[in-house]
C-alpha cells in the first residue's frame, strides 16, 4: 500500500477527486452551453460518430432487406387483424364517429406542424450508456439552433435540445426519466403531464400523471402538447393511451402512453426553431 500511495500520487489523486466533485456540483444543473473544452472533444469525436452512423446505415440497409421478409409477414398478420377490427368498427356507428374525429384531429396536427420554422437534422449518436434516452444531432449553434427548442418528426414529438455545441446538439427524449412535458387529452381537453419513467422507458413508453379526478380518459385517447411550460408549441402529437393503472402508493391513477415516435429507429428529426424567420 505504501508503494502505491506515496504522498505525491495520493495528493494528486485527492486533488483530482476534489476537483471532479466541485465540477460535479457546478455542472449538475443544466449545463446548457458547453465550454470550449467540451466543444473541442465533441468536434473530435463527432466525425467518427458520423462515419460510424453512415456506415451502419449502409450495412443496416443491406441486412434490412432480409429482415423485411419477416417484417412483411408480421405486417400481413397485423393487417388481417386490422381488417377484422375495422369491420367491427363499421358496425358500430358511434365508435366510427369517434374514430373519425380522432383521425381528423391527427390530420389537423400534421398540417399545423408545417407552420413552424423547421430545421432538419440527422441523429449521429445515441447515449453511450444504458441509463438515458438521449441522442446527438448534427446541427448546433452554427445552424441557428439553441437550447430548449422542441425536436419533432413528421409523426410527432421527440423531445428538446438540452445542451448545444457549435456543430452538435444533445436531445433529451420524452421517454427519458428526466423529462416532463405539459400535455392535453385531445378528446376531453384535460390537461396532464407526460413524464419519462425508468421502467416504462425500457419499452419505449412514458407515463401520463396529474390526471384530474374528473377527467374521463380512456384507452386509445390521443395526447398532444398543451403548450404550457415554454418549450413545446401547442398541438404536437405525443402518442396515445395504452393502459390506465392505479398509482402504487396513492388513490390517484396514471396512464401508460405509447408515443407515436419509435425512439429505437429514429434517424432524422426536425428542430422547431424559434429564431429563424
Amino acid at each position, binding site marked *: 500500500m505504501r508503494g502505491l500511495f506515496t504522498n505525491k500520487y495520493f495528493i494528486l489523486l485527492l486533488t483530482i477527486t476534489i476537483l471532479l466533485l466541485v465540477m460535479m456540483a457546478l455542472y449538475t444543473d443544466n449545463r446548457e452551453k458547453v465550454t470550449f473544452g467540451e466543444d473541442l472533444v465533441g468536434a473530435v469525436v463527432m466525425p467518427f460518430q458520423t462515419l460510424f452512423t453512415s456506415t451502419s446505415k449502409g450495412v443496416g440497409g443491406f441486412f434490412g432487406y432480409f429482415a423485411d421478409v419477416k417484417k412483411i409477414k408480421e405486417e400481413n398478420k397485423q393487417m388481417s387483424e386490422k381488417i377484422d377490427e375495422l369491420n367491427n368498427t363499421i358496425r358500430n356507428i358511434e365508435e366510427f364517429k369517434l374514430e373519425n374525429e380522432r383521425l381528423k384531429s391527427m390530420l389537423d396536427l400534421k398540417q399545423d406542424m408545417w407552420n413552424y420554422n423547421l430545421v432538419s437534422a440527422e441523429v449521429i449518436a445515441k447515449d453511450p450508456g*444504458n441509463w438515458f434516452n438521449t441522442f446527438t444531432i448534427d446541427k448546433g449553434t452554427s445552424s441557428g439552433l439553441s437550447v430548449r427548442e422542441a425536436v419533432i418528426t413528421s409523426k410527432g414529438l421527440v423531445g428538446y435540445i438540452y445542451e448545444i455545441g457549435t456543430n452538435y446538439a444533445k436531445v433529451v427524449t420524452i421517454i427519458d426519466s428526466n423529462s416532463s412535458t405539459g400535455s392535453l387529452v385531445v378528446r376531453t381537453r384535460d390537461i396532464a403531464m407526460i413524464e419519462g419513467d425508468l421502467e416504462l422507458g425500457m419499452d419505449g413508453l412514458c407515463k401520463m400523471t396529474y390526471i384530474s379526478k374528473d377527467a374521463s380518459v380512456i384507452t386509445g385517447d390521443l395526447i398532444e402538447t398543451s403548450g404550457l411550460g415554454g418549450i413545446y408549441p401547442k398541438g404536437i402529437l405525443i402518442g396515445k393511451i395504452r393502459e390506465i393503472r392505479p398509482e402504487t402508493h396513492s388513490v390517484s391513477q396514471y396512464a401508460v402512453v405509447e408515443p407515436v415516435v419509435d425512439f429505437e429507429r429514429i434517424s432524422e428529426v426536425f428542430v422547431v426553431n424559434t429564431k429563424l424567420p
Partner: protein
Amino acid sequence: MRTVVYTISVILLTALQSTLINYIQIFGIKPNLLLIFVVCVALFGGSIEGGMVGLFCGVVADIIGHGAFGVNSLAYLYIGVIVGYLAITFFRGGAIVAIGFVFCTSIICGLLYYTFTYFMWGDTNLFLALFRKIIPESIYTTAITLPIYFLFEKINFRLGVRKG
C-alpha cells in the same frame, strides 16, 4: 507512442459506444467498451497508467454522454487506480482476472450511476435498476471482454509492453 495509441483508442471506442454498439443491444442493454479498456490498461500498465487513462476515458464519456458531469470521470479514475494496484500486488493471472475485474467494476459503476443520477433525486427503485440494467449490462460487458482483452494484449505486445 502508447499515449497516441491510447488517445486514438479512447476516441474510437467512445464513437463506437454511441453509434454501432446500439445495433448489438440485447433487450435494450449495451456493453460498456470503455470500462473494458480501462481495466485492460490498468492490468497491463499498473495503477498510475490505469488511473490516467481512466480519468481521460471518464472525462470524454462525461462530455459525450448525459447525466451528472464527473460520475464517469471519478468512477473510471478509481477503477484504473484500484484495478492496477490489485493486479500488480495480488493477481498475476491474465484473461480470467480481466473477466473478474470487468464484472465487479461494471456492477460498482452501475451502482454509482444509479446513486448519482436516480437515487439522489428520489428514485428508489433499486431492485429494478439492479435486475434490468446493472446486472444485465455487467454480464454483457463481461461476455465481450475476452476478444477485446486479446486484441489489447496483441497491440501492447507490438508496443513492447508486458503485463504487470
